[in-house]
């Protein structure tokens, strides 16, 4: 494990870790007829329930999770997001569709192969932690290794390393009942990390925590992701959390994905009224980047004014423009891509811009949207770490 990578590792390839297509999960009597029947599969949830007694928790969902990214599935309670994440490792058996991990068909796996998948390739962190109350912190963290048959001394040693990594040194011998909520979730996180999985699955891990603790834990996840570059699938109902953590977000409603895209796309060009309503109160200048906000450079703009990177947020550009009193140039590797001035920046804040066609491309066709994602740290938090400020060019400050 490479712990020492100083900056967030960009996704190296676009190959998907999880590839999901046409996934259905229907609860109720004879569920398999719903996805197969084109008439039933298009019914509204209430009608479906009235006609068949079935509830479709996940309806025809398709997406890819790319290696190294944080893929957030967001939706309100009952939107099917928790069912969806459980389908990935077949904790809940899907009704129809395909799931592949690294190209291998998950639904075709036999019991032993599935166990291997759960033991080594995907580990999950749960909302209410799911810790074993009769075991110590150390033995809880080592539990996954114990299941794999790792010897006692070795698994304890490895567990102790992970316990230290999540900041629980000195608490190894406590029991879950003696810990606070945040500490318990650190144990849950450590248990998942201890088996060194390829993918971490989070099922609303922080929604049972107090707001301050929640922010700490989010920062912890950001830190871990930056250090290890592990692929993560993160379920949440909290938009702020989704925008803060997600490289890409799938927004779910009634079992369907209504929009899938980068946080900027979700906020900047909502797919429908539901999404628009959802993102209405988001401070747009914290999410939108200069690449979206800029206009083509005119001849007289080229020489003067501060330079900002295309990934810098509008909020950063506002600061640069305000300090310099002149429009800022959007510079990428010495090339001037465009210009942002008061007009564009104000448009973003007021929410009257529509995305330019160049930036509105579908995320699946535009892998470059993900690398070097701007660090939209959570709005209220001051930017202190150097990595966070990195996208802004020096002359802008």
């Amino acid at each position, binding site marked *: 494990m490479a712990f020492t990578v100083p900056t967030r590792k960009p996704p190296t390839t676009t190959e998907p870790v999880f590839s999901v297509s046409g996934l259905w999960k229907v609860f109720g009597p004879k569920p398999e007829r719903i996805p197969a029947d084109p008439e039933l599969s298009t019914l509204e949830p209430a009608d479906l329930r009235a006609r068949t007694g079935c509830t479709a928790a996940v309806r025809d969902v398709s997406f890819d999770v790319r290696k190294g990214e944080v893929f957030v599935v967001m939706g309100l309670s009952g939107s099917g997001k928790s069912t969806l994440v*459980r389908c990935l*490792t077949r*904790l809940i058996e899907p009704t129809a569709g395909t799931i592949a991990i690294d190209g291998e068909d998950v639904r075709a796996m036999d019991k032993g192969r*599935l*166990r*291997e*998948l*759960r*033991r*080594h390739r995907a*580990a*999950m962190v*749960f*909302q*209410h*932690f*799911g*810790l*074993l*109350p*009769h075991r110590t912190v150390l033995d809880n963290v080592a*539990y*996954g290794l*114990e*299941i*794999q048959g790792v010897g006692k001394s070795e698994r304890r040693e490895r567990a102790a390393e992970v316990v230290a990594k999540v900041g629980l040194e000195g608490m190894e011998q406590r029991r879950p009942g003696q810990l606070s909520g945040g500490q318990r979730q650190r144990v*849950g996180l450590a*248990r998942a990390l201890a*088996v060194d999985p390829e993918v971490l*699955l989070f099922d609303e891990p922080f929604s049972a925590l107090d707001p301050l603790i929640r922010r700490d834990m989010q920062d912890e996840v950001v830190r871990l992701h930056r250090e290890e570059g592990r692929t993560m699938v993160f379920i949440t109902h909290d938009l702020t959390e989704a925008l803060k953590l997600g490289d890409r977000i799938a927004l779910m409603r009634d079992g369907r994905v209504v929009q899938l895209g980068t946080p900027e796309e979700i906020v900047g060009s909502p797919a429908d009224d539901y999404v628009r309503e959802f993102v209405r109160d988001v401070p747009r200048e914290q999410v939108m980047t200069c690449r979206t906000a800029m206009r083509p450079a005119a001849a007289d703009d080229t020489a003067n004014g501060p330079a900002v990177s295309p990934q810098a947020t509008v909020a950063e550009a506002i600061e640069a423009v305000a300090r310099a009193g002149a429009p800022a140039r959007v510079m990428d590797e010495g090339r001037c891509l465009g210009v942002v001035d008061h007009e564009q920046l104000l448009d973003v804040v007021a929410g009257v811009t529509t995305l330019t066609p160049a930036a509105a491309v579908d995320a699946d066709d535009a892998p470059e949207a993900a690398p070097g994602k701007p660090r939209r740290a959570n709005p209220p938090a001051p930017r202190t770490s150097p990595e966070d400020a990195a996208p802004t060019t020096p002359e802008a400050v």
Partner: protein
Amino acid sequence: MATLSLPTSGTGTPRVLKSRAAGKLLLLALFAAVLAPWAATHWPGAAWPHALTVSLDKPLATASNWVIDNRDSHPLFLYFFGYVSNAVVLSVRAVYVTLLAAGWTGVTVLGALVAWRVAGVRLAAGTAIAFLACGALGMWVPTMQTLALMVVAVLASALVGAVLGLAAGLSDRLDRALRPVLDTMQVLPAFAYLLPVVLVFGIGVPAAVLATVVYAAPPMARLTALGLRGADPEVLEAVESLGATRRQRLLTARIPLARGELLLGLNQTIMMALSMAVIAAVIGAGGLGDRVYQALASVDVGQALAAGIPIVLLAIVLDRVTAAAGAGTGDTRTRAIGWPYALAVTAAVALAARLLGRLDWPTGWTLDIAAPVNHAVDWMTNHLYSGVPVIGGTADWAGHFTTWILDPVRGGLQWLPWWSVLLIVAALAWSIGTWRTALTAVLAMAAIGVLGVWGPALDTLSQVLAAVAVTLVLGLATGIAAARSERVERALRPVLDVFQTMPQFVYLIPVVALFGVGRAPAVAAAVVYALPAVVRITAQGLRQVDPAALESARSLGATGRQQLWQIQLPLARRSLLLAVNQGVVLVLAVVIIGGLVGGGALGYNVAFGLAQGDLATGLVAGAAIVCLGLMLDRVTQPTQRRTTKGA
């Protein structure tokens, strides 16, 4: 289930009837209006019509004779029951000999060390004192006999119960099949189990042990299944998400997570085994129960008390120690000593006692309480039984209770036409439960008539009704007081704790001392036995009422009385129904045992059948007791049942 009960009534009920209970009753009334005149003309008279009875005396007598004739020759007995019987006798014998070999010092020290290990110093001292008291009362040998029987019975019950519970916990189908059986077994009076066992094994230790196992295994099975099923689903999901196999999940998660329930099950099994081991004296268990039984037979209260006190002490010690084991989650404080150390100390003490020749309890150290107690009872008989100015004597009370309450209730029940009794049962059961429970109750009641013991069953029923009425009045009042006043609750708690752990049989001793023999003392014993559970459930139910509802009532200026009547009692309705249900079940158990002290009716039939070797009478009475228990439970059963019952 509750929602499914309506469709049957949907055919006849007009829509104006909003209340579901009213609809059910109306339907029942229609039904009665058609059938009652027909039944009354066909079979006139109040008692169950003779034409509808099936006499089981002859087939049962034949079966019983066949068993007696073939006990030594038939392969079923030779190769199965014979082995079971021998195994039981051998193991009880082995434990008994071991206990005697350890001597009184060894047993006391071992008991104290075990208590120390699992429950701390205070309970260790209590255990030692309890054992010494057993010796001091001259009851060391009977105590060891009871203990030997208990050890074997508890081990067997725990094993059987755990295996059944494991099966029910892991398989949904088995759970569905086992649950109603276990539920029903838990409401049946202990007396009902005795005769079938005697039929197969004859009177003796094997019968006693097996009756105890059958009686004591259900709580272990129920709680094991409950514990396995009640595990936090997210923990199990987390375990599964890490790729655990079924076996790993069971061993590392489900069983450890069910630890509390398993130990609670063990605790209940031990308490029920003790209760049954004492009652099983009437089928040859020997030991303390036998001493009480013999003493009660000759109304020797002093002797009965001398044997009863060790039973109570044993019950309290066993309950507290096992409960502490269940409550403590591996607290380091109580782990003062290790098992090997405890065993070594015990062996050393036993060896020392043996070398000193002090293995048996020293004869000079016994305290004869029988004579002074009998003296006191005589004094009571002379001075308190009757003729006390103004308040009257205890025998007068018993007499008045019999003539003014028991006789009229019995007379009323026997005056009622048989079909109207069935209708009342149906109405009660249906209005509170589902049509299923009502059907079970009616069928059970009809079965009593078919068995030909309608008369005695109504006699028993009259005693149960009187006892339940008294229990509920006293119990609900006390429960309300305990719920409303912290002080009353604190004062009551130790009393209730002790009363709830005592075996049923023990309650007969004081009532015989106070009221002599007859139906009234049986009712009194039943009331005393059922009271603690009713008080406790009532108080708990009232205390668990949503504090927000109470607070809002208070903020609106409700008086204490208004809070009680308008908030607490309605919201605690479920608990109150449960209190009634438990009260009825517990009262029935003791009213039946009251047959031993002159309660008559079904309990007497069982005792008579055992004493005279007339198994047919006894078995029919036993079956009627089962039906009565089933009927009473269903009639008072709230739709959801609670898991535990006072042993």
